[in-house]
Structure formats: structure tokens, C-alpha cells
């Protein structure tokens, strides 16, 4: 069955590696949002790495999704025409000046104007076309000059190809922007490539751009890049300063930081899930006056029914709900189960989440279960329907090393399940409360440090064996989610934003119409 297509939509969602092809917290949120606004039509523009990295759709498309298109940035079959050309030296001089401004770290008007001008020259036959970047003498001379002046790595070949590969998605995104159906506004769920596409679209169409950032994309990329082993460092032993990042690593980090910055600068409104992430966005270049906090919210009636399905006993089950990927640190959960089982021999540890994203990691986790002697206590359940799973769970466990405001904790609270979580993102705020009023609602579980299996195991054991403490935590969770994290509160905040931006969009159309009328 093909994807739905339309020639226009109210809101175009820019989705990088998420809904509807990848399941997880962000995808669930996107699904929830689309269904929460049936009065608007949505177009979904999915951006992925390669087609083979994704399976079939993990979500049934809501009826108000009128258009879905998919694009893969690492599908190198596109390619520009293979012919040498002279190129426009002045255009590359402008690129050089832009890079100087990027390096200075200042967000000046001049930089914004330059970006807008460069974006206009990316198309075929223009001064900064892909063909010109890949095959013109002007481009070659610019790249080799940059290498001589800036590179701290002795390999020109690596430099040349790094620059080419790093920038190639820009033209792919430009092509997507060229062909995307018109929308009244754009809504990107991350910075990165999708965010940059949003910036391109905003600069071209003048239509408003809304950014809702769950995790901080730039930060996560930066950590990936710090740890990655595929980036070469050709410096010899004596050239190396181990406090200095490998040149290419630094180059990639800067590239993603700049992509993020361009998205922040172009966005009309910027949403974070909680205050610390909002502050981070401002530090990373987001204009503070455009930032807001809108926490996630859950569908309370739905989860009240799930709560009803629970029995009176607390099942001796600790459950991690999430994809089996390194960022969830499933290994720490498994190790913590050793501590739990030492105290409660019949305790069960469940991992409920898709296992297709990182098969190597899944294998490592399964090996760890065997080596910890937990074969009888730990089960990998795969993807589960949360409504059916939560009534069988005693404690929800989140061992992640990075999170924002995990929807799963709120869903657990609403379903009457306390949580033990690592101290990441807003988990402490969710479990212990933020501010006197919130804290007075009580602790809905426990918070421990990251990568500390023993503390995690002890906290889980405590909750599973201390019934009064468990009851208190359950009640605190229910009270907190009912007071602060309802779907209605979230939708109301977004309705304000959508309506404001739609009005802005209509104004800009009227403005353009007026100008055309005069001319």
C-alpha cells in the first residue's frame, strides 16, 4: 500500500528517524499530537539514513495525515552530473566569510543574511549547486586553501572527503525543500538534519517554523562523535596533544552545532520539555525570548482503566520499557537485577521494547544475562502493548544515561506503577517533584546515579519489599500526573502555539499578496 499524498497540508511535520517508522517515546508523542489535533491536516516528511535501516511502519497513520514522504540522506545514488566546471569564485569567498562568522560564534544579522543568500544559491545551475561544490575549480581551490590554513590533520585526502561527505546532505535537504508540498507552517521535532530542513523551508517560504525538542540533538550527536571510532586521527605520536580533539571529530561536532544553531535562529517558537533543556537550548544559540517549556502529558482516562486492571498484590516484577539500545543502558538494569535477585530470588526483570535497532547490543545484553546467571529471572519481551503490560508490573525501571521527559514514566504513574530511575533529564523532577507544592505530593519512586547497578538494584528491592512505601509512591505518582502532566494541558499549550503561528502564516500570505497587487 502506498503512502497518502496530497497537494497541501496545514502542518508539515519534519521527522528525523522517528514516527512512523521507528517506535519509541518521541514517535508516541508525535502520534499523540496528530490525533490530538483532528482539526488540522498533517503532512509527514520522514528523513532517515538508508532505506534498509528501517522496517515497515510501526504506527497506523491517523486519518488527518494527508501526506507522507520518505527521504534517505545516506542514499548516495543521487549524485550530481559528472563534468568539471570553473565555478563561481566569489560565491566560495562568501562561503569562506560565512564560515569565519560561524567560527567567531556570534549570531549577527550579517550571518543570518549570508545564510539566506547562500540558501538561495544551492539549486541546480546556481553558484553553490551540488555540481559546483563537487566538481568546480573554485570549490577545489576553496577546500584546499581551507586545508592549508586550518587543518590540524596531515591527511588532505581525509580532509577532502570529510568535507564532501559532511556537506552532501545539505543538497539532499535542499532538494527535499524544493519538492515538499506547501504547508501553512512547519513543525520539526528535532534540530539536526530535520531542523536544518526546517530552517531552509522557513528562509524560502517565509512560513512559520516550530521546533519541539525532546532530547537535545546536538548534545547527543556530540557525545556519539566523542566516542565514535570511525573518525580518523592521522596525527603522529609527537604531533598529538591528548587534550585536543582529533581535527575531524571537532569538525563534525562543529557541523552539527551549526545545523542546530541555524534551526534555532530560524524557528519562530522553540519548545523544550523542561527547564534544564530550555536553558541548554539558549546556551546552544536559541534566542531566549522564543523558548518555552511544554511538558509531555498523558491520556488520564485511558490509564485509569489500566490502573483498574491491577490486582491488589505488587507483582515482583521490575520492568524496563524502552528500545534495547545503548542509550537506555539496559546492561545496568540487568546488573541491577543481580542485586534484586540476591534479595528476592523469585523477582523478575522484564525488558519490553523493540530489539531491531541495534542487534549487536541486544546480543551483548543477552550474553550478560547468561553470565550473571539470570536466565530464569530476566525476559526480553520485545514490543508490548503498554496497556496490557503495566498491570503486571511492580516497578518501572529507567536506567538510561540520557533522557528528556520520558512519557513512559508518566504513563506508569497514571497506571499506578512507581518508577526507579537514573538521575537524567527531568526524571528527578517527575519522581520527587519540583518546587514546594510539587514536592509535597510525595516521592513517586526513587532516583539513583547513572551506571550504578547496585544502587538501582537496592532501590528496586526496597520498593518491591516495602508495601507501605510502594503504596505511598503509587499515590504520589497518580497525584503528580493528574495535577501537572495531563494531555489536556499539553494540547492547550500547543493549540496556542499552532493558532498563533497559523495566524502569522496567514499574515505573511496576505503581505505577499499585497506586494504582488502593488507590483
Amino acid at each position: 500500500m502506498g503512502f497518502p499524498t496530497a497537494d497541501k497540508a496545514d502542518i508539515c511535520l519534519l521527522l528525523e528517524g522517528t514516527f512512523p517508522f521507528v517506535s519509541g517515546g518521541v514517535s508516541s508523542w508525535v502520534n499523540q499530537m496528530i490525533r490530538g489535533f483532528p482539526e488540522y491536516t498533517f503532512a509527514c516528511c520522514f528523513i532517515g539514513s538508508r532505506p534498509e535501516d528501517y522496517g515497515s511502519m510501526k504506527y497506523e497513520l491517523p486519518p488527518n495525515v494527508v501526506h507522507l514522504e520518505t527521504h534517505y540522506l545516506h542514499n548516495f545514488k543521487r549524485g550530481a552530473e559528472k563534468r568539471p566546471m570553473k565555478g563561481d569564485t566569489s560565491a566560495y569567498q562568501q562561503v569562506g566569510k560565512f564560515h569565519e562568522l560561524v567560527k567567531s560564534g556570534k549570531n549577527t544579522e550579517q550571518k543570518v543574511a549570508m545564510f539566506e543568500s547562500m540558501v538561495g544559491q544551492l539549486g541546480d545551475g546556481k553558484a553553490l549547486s551540488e555540481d559546483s561544490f563537487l566538481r568546480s575549480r573554485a570549490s577545489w581551490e576553496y577546500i584546499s586553501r581551507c586545508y592549508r590554513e586550518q587543518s590540524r590533520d596531515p591527511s588532505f585526502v581525509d580532509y577532502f572527503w570529510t568535507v564532501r561527505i559532511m556537506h552532501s546532505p545539505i543538497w539532499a535537504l535542499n532538494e527535499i525543500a524544493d519538492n515538499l508540498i506547501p504547508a501553512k507552517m512547519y513543525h520539526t521535532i528535532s534540530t539536526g538534519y530535520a531542523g536544518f530542513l526546517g530552517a531552509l523551508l522557513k528562509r524560502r517560504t517565509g512560513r512559520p517554523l516550530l521546533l519541539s525538542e525532546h532530547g537535545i540533538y546536538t548534545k547527543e550527536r556530540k557525545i556519539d562523535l566523542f566516542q565514535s571510532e570511525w573518525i580518523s586521527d592521522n596525527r603522529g605520536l609527537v604531533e598529538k596533544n591528548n587534550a585536543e580533539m582529533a581535527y575531524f571529530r571537532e569538525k563534525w561536532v562543529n557541523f552539527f552545532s551549526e545545523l542546530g544553531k541555524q534551526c534555532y535562529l530560524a524557528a519562530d517558537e522553540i519548545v523544550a520539555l523542561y527547564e534544564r533543556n530550555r536553558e541548554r537550548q539558549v546556551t546552544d544559540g536559541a534566542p531566549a525570548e522564543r523558548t518555552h517549556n511544554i511538558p509531555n502529558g498523558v491520556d488520564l482516562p485511558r490509564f485509569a482503566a489500566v490502573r483498574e486492571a491491577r490486582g491488589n498484590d505488587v507483582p515482583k516484577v521490575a520492568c524496563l520499557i524502552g528500545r534495547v539500545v545503548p542509550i537506555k543502558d539496559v546492561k545496568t538494569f540487568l546488573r541491577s537485577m543481580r542485586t534484586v535477585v540476591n534479595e528476592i530470588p523469585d523477582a523478575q526483570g522484564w525488558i519490553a521494547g523493540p530489539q531491531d535497532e541495534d542487534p549487536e547490543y541486544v546480543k551483548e545484553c543477552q550474553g550478560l544475562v547468561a553470565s550473571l546467571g539470570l536466565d530464569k529471572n530476566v525476559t526480553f519481551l520485545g514490543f508490548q502493548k503498554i496497556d496490557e503490560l503495566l498491570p503486571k508490573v511492580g516497578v518501572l525501571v529507567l536506567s538510561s544515561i540520557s533522557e528528556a521527559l520520558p512519557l513512559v514514566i508518566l504513563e506508569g504513574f497514571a497506571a499506578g506503577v512507581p518508577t526507579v530511575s537514573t538521575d537524567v533529564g527531568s526524571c528527578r523532577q517527575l519522581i520527587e517533584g519540583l518546587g514546594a507544592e510539587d514536592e509535597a505530593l510525595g516521592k513517586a519512586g526513587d532516583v539513583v546515579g547513572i551506571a550504578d547497578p547496585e544502587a538501582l538494584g537496592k532501590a528496586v528491592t526496597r520498593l518491591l519489599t516495602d508495601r507501605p512505601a510502594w503504596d505511598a509512591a503509587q499515590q504520589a505518582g497518580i497525584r503528580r500526573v493528574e495535577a501537572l502532566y495531563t494531555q489536556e494541558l499539553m494540547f492547550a499549550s500547543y493549540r496556542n502555539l499552532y493558532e498563533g503561528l497559523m495566524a502569522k502564516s496567514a499574515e505573511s500570505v496576505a503581505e505577499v499578496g499585497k506586494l504582488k497587487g502593488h507590483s
Partner: protein
Amino acid sequence: MSNLKLLFYAISSEIASLMLLLSDDTSVAYFIVYLLAHALASGLMSVVAWRFLPARFRTPKMLSLLLIFGFAFFIPAIGLLTLLIGIVVGVWLPAIFRDRPFSLVGEPYYTPVQAASSSSFRQIDIQSLLSSPDSPDALRMQGMLVLKDMPARVTGKVLRESLGDRYEDVRLLSYGILDLKEKTITRDIDRLLQLLERAKSSRRYGLARRLAELYWELTYQDLVRGDIRKLTLEKAAFYADMALMEAPQDAGLWVLRGRIQLAQGSVGEAQQSLVFSRRLGLSANQVNPWLAEIAMERRQFSLVRRLMGEISDNSQFTHLNKSVEYWRGHGLSHR
């Protein structure tokens, strides 16, 4: 077969066929043999000539080959000669006049570009840098990069403290560093466990010894803690015992066994293992530091003095020299 060989066979066959043709014998059989030899020469020549054709003339393959073969076969001797000249001219002439898309460039040179001085890392104590609330986050991240390349045994404590850092990037990076180090060892363990499962008895000793070392490494590098540390030490002891069953004379393994027992808190057993390793021939330099540690734990200071005194000056434990000096001095002052 190479073109040169084919060419040689083609020319030889053609010469042979010409000799047959020019011989006095005029029988039909001789003529047929001539035709066969000439056909062979033409065939071989066709293959060589076809290979030298520009790509656009090589298709369709069969027809193109047939055309060359016809030329060579129906014009005896001269056809072949013409093809030969054609090949030579076709290969050499364009090579002489080809306008190469290359030009002479100067020797490559590279002058390393220094990083901006503002981002250079000051040589200060990393631990205080990381824990100081006044240090800029960018500088602390640089500090983490230094830790990345240092042995986990030395950096384990700092990295673990950084897991609770106020700045998330530092937390994530320290997690990543610890995780990578742990993963490297765990992968080796998994691989060896698989090998051990299907190993012949002759290989079991080596594999078990390596497994004991790897499990020990996890605890020695401070990569596992709490219940998992306990479990890891049990595994290290299990594989050390397995290896010792196969090779009870392995003195080095007895030292490892002793150190594992020491980490497990079995001081008496550790002492026995270490003493046994000495009996098997290991020097005082290699074993006495651990024996001295046990004696120290038991507050047997004179024994510590004696054990440390036995360590020679050229001990491999350079960081131990100060302790050795101290105990020797201490011993003298009490004499």
C-alpha cells in the same frame, strides 16, 4: 592467458602454417593441416587484437571477433601482419600523442596548524579541574579527553565521580569512556567462553588462564563494583582454578590466584597461593609486594620489613621503590 603469450602462439602457428603451405607436399591432408594451423593463428590473433580495440568497437562481442577473424583468415600472412602492426600502432601512437589530464605539481608539503591558543589545555590536576565548580565546561570536557586515553585503573575513580557531574556532557562522556573500556574486555571474554566450550583439552589451559586474567582485569581496572565485582572475582577464581588443574606448576598463575583471593578478602588463602608461587621459583621482586601487603594487614611489621628488604633495587615496580626505601630505612633505625 596474457596478450603477449597469445601473440607468441599466434605468430608461431602462422609461421608453421606458412611452412606447411610452402612445402613440396601438395596432398589434401597437408592443406587441411595448413588451414587448421592458419585458423588457430587467426583465432588467437583475433582475441589479442579484440582486446586492444577501444571499448566502443568491442560490441557486439561475437560479431566484432568474427570480423577480425575474417580479416586474418582470408588474407593469409598479410592479414595477420597487418593486425600486428595495427596493434602496435594502436597502442603506442595514442600513448605518444595523448593529452594527459595531469600536470606536474610540486612536492606535497604539510605545515601542521596549531590549535587556537585559547583552547589549549592547561596542565593542571585533572581531578581538581573536573570537580571545580568554577572551571568552564569546555575545559572540563577537554580534561575528559585526556582521561579517555589513560588506563582505567588510574582514572576509574575520577570517571566514576564524573558520572554524577552537573554538566550532562561530562556525565555522558565519562559513562562512554568507562563503558568502552568494559566492553572491550567483555567482548574478549565472550569470545573466549565460546572457544572454551568447544576447545580440545590441550587448549583448555590457555583459554582458562586468559579468562581468569580478563575477569581479573575487570576488577583491577575498577570497571565493576558491588555485587557484580563479587561475581566477577568468583569467575576469575573459577577460571584460575581451572587453569591450575591443567598446569599446577604455573607460578605466575598462582600469583594471580593469590591476588584474586586477596581481593575477595581471603587473606590466608591468598598468602598460601603467593608463598606457593615463590616455591615454584618466582623471585621476591615479583611476589613480595603482595605478601608484604598481607603482613601489613595483619600488622606484622617485622615481616613487612623482611619481605620488603628482600626486594632488590632493580625491581620492576618502580613506584614501589619509595616504599622499599622506607622499610629498609625503618629497619635500620630500629637495629
